[in-house]
Structures are given as structure tokens and as C-alpha cells.
């Protein structure tokens, strides 16, 4: 403590009033709505993304000609119409989340951590086959993103491997759009020039996915609640199901999740949307972390964690 006076003299002026951000004022009703949304859907909009929820509610208020957030809260919680309104709101807050390369942390986890793991585990098997299922693929952005990333590995980790991507959706029209594989600026906003040049051809002002990417994917219509068909979706290494389960009620959600667990190989992974979680709907999956993303893991036989 010899130079106390010196440090006082040398103290820089650190606090400038302009730098101090006033705490954002969020109507507490929106935090209530956030908790409700989490409880029914597992989607959590953290504070920095709360504006998405506020915007979504705003659009619903307008559509319903309501004036205050409190009136909207009543609409969301009082019968009749409660369930219908929740569905509308979930639609609003998940809209625009589909685009190619939606979640880079998921793709990084896939290529940097998961693939090496799966390849190592399957190294003794005769047929080197990787099966991926995009469940609720909507208009195809997710399976194409996965296919392109797998093709990037085809000369490396996945050399000599067969990759099969199964893409399913309930909606026939979405499937048709997905098969066409034509995307505009909005859907390709996160796609780098490298991928655009390598895997797309220009189609008017849009971009069309090249045939070699399409070749990896099998598009099919499937209702996730169709138990008899779900039983046949066996042998998956990875399942992606983004913002789909939110539309199911508790019981059917658990059932679908159980199907996914059964359909996965040991050591396989199940991915949800970026801010989506399973809450406590299933105690067989292990919630695991990768840098910037979470996933659910069906422990491998060798891990001793089953």
C-alpha cells in the first residue's frame, strides 16, 4: 500500500453519464407471457430477445383490436379461445426462424464434435452409413443446410460414407416447395458466398439448390402423431425438430419425444430450435451442451450413462 496517493492522482475519469444505459422498461405483463409461453411450449425468449415476443404480441393485439397488454393476457388465459390464441402467438414468435444456415453453433457442434464422435464409434461397422432426419422440415431450408454441410465433409471425415437425409413435414404444400429448392434473399440471408457459389445455381432472381445436394435428401409427408408410421423411422443418428413440438399438447408431445428417442441409435443426438427445450418431458435423454447450443443425447452403449 505504498502508492495509494499516486493511484488517486492517476485515476482516469471512467464514468461518463452518457455511457450509462437506462434500464430498459419492459411491461411486466410480457414477462408473464414469456413464462406462460415457456410452460406450454418450452420456448424461452431471453431478455435480449424479448422484443420478438413483444412484437409478436403487438401484431396479435392489432389483429384482435385490443388496446392493452392486460387485455391480451386475459385473451391468452381465459377460455374459450385460449388454446387457439396461444397457437397464433407461437406462430408469430417462431415465424421467420426458418432460413438456410439458421444456427451456426448447431452446425459447428455437428461438424466439429458430433461427426468425429459418430465416425469413431461406427468405425468397426461394415456399412458406413449416416442417417439424419429433419422432422418438420417445412420448406426445406434445414435439410438442405444439413446436406451441404455433409457434402463439405465428403472428402474428409465422411469419405467412403453414405449419407441419407430424411425430410418430413405434415404439410403437402411445404413438401412441394421444399422439393423445388428455390430460395430468395430472405431465406439465404445467412448463407455465405462460398456456399452460394458451390451449391446453388441462379434461378431468375433467386437461387436454386444444385441436384447433387437434392440427391442426398428424401422428402416425404409424415404426421408425427401417426404412431404406426413413427415406428418405422428407425436407425437415426441425428434428428432435428425445430419449432414443431410447440404445437403439440403435453401428452402428445411426450409421445412424439418417446418415438424420437426410440428412433435414434445409441449415441445419437436430438436437436430442437435455438431457444427451445424439452423441459422435463423426458428423462431418458441427456441434456448436453456444445459451444453456443444445447442438444439431447441418447447415451452410447460404451458411455455407461444409459
Amino acid at each position, binding site marked *: *500500500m*505504498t*502508492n*495509494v*496517493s*499516486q*493511484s*488517486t492522482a*492517476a*485515476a*482516469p*475519469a*471512467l*464514468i461518463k453519464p452518457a*455511457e*450509462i*444505459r437506462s*434500464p430498459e422498461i419492459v411491461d411486466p405483463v410480457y414477462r408473464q407471457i414469456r413464462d406462460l409461453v*415457456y410452460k406450454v411450449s*418450452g420456448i*424461452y425468449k*431471453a*431478455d*435480449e430477445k424479448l422484443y420478438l415476443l413483444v412484437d409478436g404480441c403487438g401484431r396479435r393485439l392489432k389483429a384482435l383490436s385490443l388496446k392493452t397488454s392486460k387485455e391480451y393476457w386475459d385473451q391468452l388465459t381465459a377460455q374459450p379461445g385460449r388454446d387457439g390464441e396461444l397457437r397464433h402467438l407461437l406462430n408469430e414468435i417462431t415465424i421467420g426462424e426458418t432460413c438456410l444456415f439458421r444456427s451456426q453453433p448447431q452446425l*459447428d*457442434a455437428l461438424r*466439429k*464434435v*458430433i461427426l468425429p*464422435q459418430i465416425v469413431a464409434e461406427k468405425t468397426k461397422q461394415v456399412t458406413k452409413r449416416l442417417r439424419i432426419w429433419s422432422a418438420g422440415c417445412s420448406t426445406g431450408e434445414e435439410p438442405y443446410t444439413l446436406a451441404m454441410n455433409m457434402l463439405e465433409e465428403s472428402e474428409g471425415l465422411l469419405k467412403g460414407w453414405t449419407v441419407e437425409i430424411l425430410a418430413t413435414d405434415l404439410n403437402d404444400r411445404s413438401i412441394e416447395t421444399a422439393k423445388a429448392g428455390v430460395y430468395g434473399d430472405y431465406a439465404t440471408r445467412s448463407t455465405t458466398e462460398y456456399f452460394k457459389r458451390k451449391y446453388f445455381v441462379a434461378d431468375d432472381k433467386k437461387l436454386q439448390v444444385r441436384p447433387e445436394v437434392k440427391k442426398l435428401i428424401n422428402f416425404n409427408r409424415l404426421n408425427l402423431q401417426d404412431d404406426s408410421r413413427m415406428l418405422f423411422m428407425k436407425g437415426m443418428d441425428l434428428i432435428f425438430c425445430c419449432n414443431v413440438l410447440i404445437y403439440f399438447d403435453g401428452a402428445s408431445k411426450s409421445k412424439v419425444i418417446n418415438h424420437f428417442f426410440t428412433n435414434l441409435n445409441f449415441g445419437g443426438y436430438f436437436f430442437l430450435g435455438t*431457444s427451445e*427445450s*424439452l*423441459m*422435463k418431458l423426458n428423462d431418458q435423454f*441427456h*441434456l*448436453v*451442451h*456444445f*459451444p*453456443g447450443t*444445447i442438444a439431447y*443425447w441418447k447415451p452410447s452403449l460404451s458411455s455407461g*450413462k444409459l
Partner: protein
Amino acid sequence: MTTPIAATIQERVQHIETMPAIPAVFLPLLKMLGNSSEEVKVDEVVRLVSYDNTIAAQCLRVASSPLFGLAQLPKSIKSAVISLGLRRVETILLTCCLGQAFPAEKWALDPEAFWRHSLGCAMVCRKFSERLSGVDGEKAYMAGLLHDIGFMVNCLVFPKEFAAVMKRACDEEVSLYETEFQGMGFTHCETGRALAEKWKLADEIVEVIACHHSVELSQKAQPLVAVVHLSDLLCRMRGLGYGYYERQMVDLMSDPAWTVLLKEHRELEGVDLARFTFELDESVEEIHTLVATVFGAKPGKTQTAAV
């Protein structure tokens, strides 16, 4: 610590006469955190801080961050103590003191990343302990804040060796702990421990620093060490790591530390880990802002204090 390596570390650490820019109030403050009654301490803390305008100003700014709970900039240290309580203000002061340790010269480990990780881990430790009954949140905060001080020692005392270790970790995207062990034969746990002992930190904190990568070695403070271990991992997975990608899958609930903690805290079973993770994300941006605006590298800082 009787191995030859341990002796070398201890010897070198004993010879660090100065730490870059650690404010003079730091050690007296650390000592005070350990003892004496509340009434005496308020005046004592206010008196100590009054010697250092920088620390006082930073403390008020940090106290007004959403992370620490005041909506407005408090007018004085005393009014901050009144609104937040003495212990919270003490931990904030400690945070500011360590934040001053930004070196003028380049470190092998990016000081801002190191700092974000320490502050982030401190926050998560506190948040974690709020879910557990009978765990002191401010102590957990302090443990999180100090758990990696061994990296500071590495940068200062073993700059060349540690730079190579750091480079390898970044290139291979593996954990620093792993490359430290392979490249130097010892880790920040040992060097941190030597500094913690030199500073005469409380036994529990020394154990946290020494054992946060191997919870089973902890003897007196296992639950606290476990909290720090889990928070450390979680931070590294949520953008508060050391500034590079770590190829790693983390299964917190199967971690031995989770089992250790569960033994004493059944309430851990009720924690919704996914939601806990999403809530942590809310703090990440604020931690970045705080570190950049309050503790950001200040050119030409040469102030040093004997430790």
C-alpha cells in the same frame, strides 16, 4: 506441494513482487472479507475505497448494472452499501480491483476474454447457489471470480511456456487445462494455488482454485468446488470462455460434480437446466458491455502495487 515442479512454481510465485496494476486496496479488502463484524466494516470499507477514485467510480458503475441489481447509479459507496448490502458491495469492489489487472503489455491469454470468463463464472456461481439452500451466494461469487487466477500467474511467471500452451489449445480447439498439462506438466490450478496461498486467501477459496478441475480432490469445500466447476463449464459453453472454440460436449448432469452436489442438495433435481442456460444468456451481453466499458484495456497504465 513437494514435487520438484511444485517447488519451482512456489519459488517463482514467491518472487512476483508486483502484479500489474492490482490496486493497493485489494489485499486489505480481501482480508476484511474474511473477518470482523458488519458495523466496523462499513466505515472501514468506505475509508479504504476513498483512497482510490478509480475503484470507487468503477464500483458505482458496476453496482448500477442490471447484473448487480441497482436501477440507478448510486451517489456514493455508502449509499450503495445501504441499497445492496455490505457483502454485495465488497464483492463488487473485489471485482473492480481484479479488473484493474489488465496489463499494458500483451498477455498470452486475451485479458478481456479472461476477465469476461471470471466475471461470468462469478455471476453463474451466485445464480446457481440461489437454487441451493444454505449456500452463501456472495462467497460463491467470490469463488467464481478468483477460480482462474492461476492464468494470471502463468502469463506473468511462465509467459513463454504458457503462450505455447495457449496457441496449441486454440489451434487444436481443446481445453487449456489439457494443453497446460501436456505442455508444462502443471496447470493454472497449481500456479493459482501458490498465489492464493501467498495472498493468504481463505482455505475454501484456495481449494476452489486448486481443485476446480478435479472436484474429487477437494476435502473441505466439495460443494463450493462443485458449483464453480459446473459454472465454469457452463460459461465456456455459452460464449464466456477463453475466446476460442472448444470442441467439447458437456454433460453437466452426468458430471461427478453434479453427483457430489446432489448428495447434499436434493433440490438440484428441481433445476430446469435448459431454462437456467437460457437465462444465463441474458447476462452474456451485459457482461461483454461491462468488461468493455469499465475494465477495458486502458493504454499506458503503469500503476503497480506490491502484493
